[in-house]
């Protein structure tokens, strides 16, 4: 009974993703780019949610896992002759090793997960502002190293000639995988324990839960998902280290908080709503038709609208659009007469 009632917890986000993908198939290939971008953002935000939503601890470091995943998948799939031209400084192993599309995504997830685990080992001992600043430090360091280190990637340049395999299906399946993993995790006892530490750390610790271990587990899992999303991202468009730092952190965090960081549905809704709005205004820079009205806005309006919406939602509805709740079917009320009968018979 509970299983059926809880079904929308997984189904609602999945249907939203599939709906976006189907809509993306209908539009012109110019507009489809926005749908693809949105689906990849959904994957990133769901990865963020697995840690932030369950633990209640803010992390500014997840985009570094996205970046690392993107670097892994990118470097391993650019054809070798291209690598010799565009990334001459690459180390020998990376220069000569090439893998396929699926393998590159899997490796991106593994590298993201391992890096998150290694970083989390010391960092998950911290909490509060110290943890926030430390994860910020991780982001800055990763970005700094990826920008200048030419042994592991293109350095300051953008990735070029990565096979663009992230079409609408790969993006949708990628998003669904992230959602499914997040759902499966939040049905486990580990997630329940982590949520208990979120609500009341002292009581949870008194009940025998290791806050450190639970946070580390969620951090690693969410790092792996972030790496996977980074892999999807690099197969979509030529990425640059500068594009994988502060701005992406801002935007993805805002998506999570605007949607409602307490629920998987919130993560998906936030990513779809904000990126949808952003895409609409970006497209409107070159005129869009809205119910027969043609609308043109100056470039930069998209960022303004996004920033303003973020601020307004946070001020008016700080628990997010979904209020941090999952969708579930209403509990079937038993009538009073039934209850009376039940009491008499017992």
């Amino acid at each position, binding site marked *: 009974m509970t299983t059926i009632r809880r079904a929308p917890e997984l189904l609602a986000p999945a249907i939203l993703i599939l709906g976006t993908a189907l809509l993306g198939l209908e539009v012109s290939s110019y507009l489809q780019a926005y749908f693809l971008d949105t689906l990849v953002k959904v994957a990133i935000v769901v990865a963020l949610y697995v840690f932030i939503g369950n633990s209640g601890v803010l992390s500014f470091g997840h985009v570094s896992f996205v970046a690392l995943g993107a670097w892994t998948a990118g470097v391993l799939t650019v054809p070798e002759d291209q690598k010799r031209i565009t990334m001459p400084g690459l180390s020998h192993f990376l220069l000569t090793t090439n893998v396929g599309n699926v393998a590159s995504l899997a490796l991106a997830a593994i590298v993201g997960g391992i890096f998150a685990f290694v970083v989390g080992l010391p960092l998950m001992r911290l909490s509060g502002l*110290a943890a926030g*600043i430390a994860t910020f430090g991780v982001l800055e360091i990763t970005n700094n190293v990826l920008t200048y280190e030419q042994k592991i990637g293109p350095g300051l340049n953008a990735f070029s000639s990565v096979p663009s395999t992230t079409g609408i299906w790969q993006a949708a399946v990628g998003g669904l995988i992230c959602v499914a993993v997040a759902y499966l995790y939040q049905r486990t006892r580990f997630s329940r324990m982590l949520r208990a530490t979120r609500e009341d750390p002292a009581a949870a610790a008194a009940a025998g839960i290791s806050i450190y271990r639970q946070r580390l587990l969620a951090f690693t899992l969410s790092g792996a998902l972030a790496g996977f999303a980074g892999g999807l991202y690099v197969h979509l468009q030529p990425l640059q280290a500068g594009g994988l730092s502060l701005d992406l952190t801002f935007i993805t965090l805002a998506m999570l908080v605007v949607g409602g960081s307490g629920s998987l549905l919130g993560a998906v809704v936030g990513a779809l709503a904000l990126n949808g709005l952003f895409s609409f205004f970006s497209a409107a820079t070159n005129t869009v038709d809205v119910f027969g009205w043609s609308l043109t806005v100056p470039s930069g309006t998209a960022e303004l609208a996004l920033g303003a919406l*973020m601020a307004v939602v946070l001020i008016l509805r700080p628990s997010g659009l979904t209020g941090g709740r999952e969708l579930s079917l209403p509990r079937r009320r038993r009538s009073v007469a039934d209850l009376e009968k039940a009491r008499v018979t017992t």
Partner: protein
Amino acid sequence: MIVAFLNLTWPTFANGLALGGVYALMAVGIGLVFGVLRLVNFAYGQLIMAGAFALAYGSQWGFPNWASILFCFGVVLGLSVLMDWLVFRPLRTHSPAVMLVATFAIAFLLQNIALLAFGPLGKSAGALAVLNAPWDIGGVFIKKIAVISFATAVGCLVILQLLLTRTPLGLHMRAAAMDFRTARLLGVRANWVISGAVIVSGLFAAVSAVMLSVQELTVVPAFGTQDTILVLAGVVLGGLNRPIPATLGGFAIGFANGILGGVLPSNQSQYLPSFLFAAVIVVLLVRPTGLFARGGGAVERV
């Protein structure tokens, strides 16, 4: 002695002191607002950016220097009061995490307004650039701005210390930073104290804007963002709750940044942010409540 040991030159040392001074001011500006509101204002860098643009436009329109500086102060103060009214006030009762993300949104918004209004290339803040010329102090050439920055920072901090310890407003601010609810019960007026903190923090942002725009010459929409992140790290490093540790933390990271930037060869100094943040992480692991915190009282804020 330190100077000889690190193989430093006096000008580099002076630049380190100057940057440290400015960062200390920013640290206090962030720390004061945190003290009364429990809010980490990430949009602080955008206040500085706005001030720097005001300065650049002032000099472009042919204002005399004192008028452009006044203009800069006006813009920054106006913006901070507006921020307090429109954002901090409605969010006062919400969780620190929501407030932090909201200031993120404001920072993003302001930066994009600047991008739309002033373009990505930025403006040069020309009028005060003469201050980059060196003074000859006993055979050592030190930039005027380095001396002025450091002196101004020390002056501002002394005035703040007097304000905090010798005036009723300062007393109320310290009480509110210690325990806001109890302070209110004892007759501290919340709005008064918060406005005071916001205005002082805005003044410090304006001073920092003047100093930084002379040192960096070009004002772009991202002006001050990187500095704010470093200062935040410094503030947390020192201990966010009390002004003096926060100041020391801000100064330390500014000083380290200025000196290492001058000493390291360019193929190493490109990794400077990595070194700084690695050091910050290590210190946080050893002393999570800050370098200068007195034991206990590790309350989770975010």
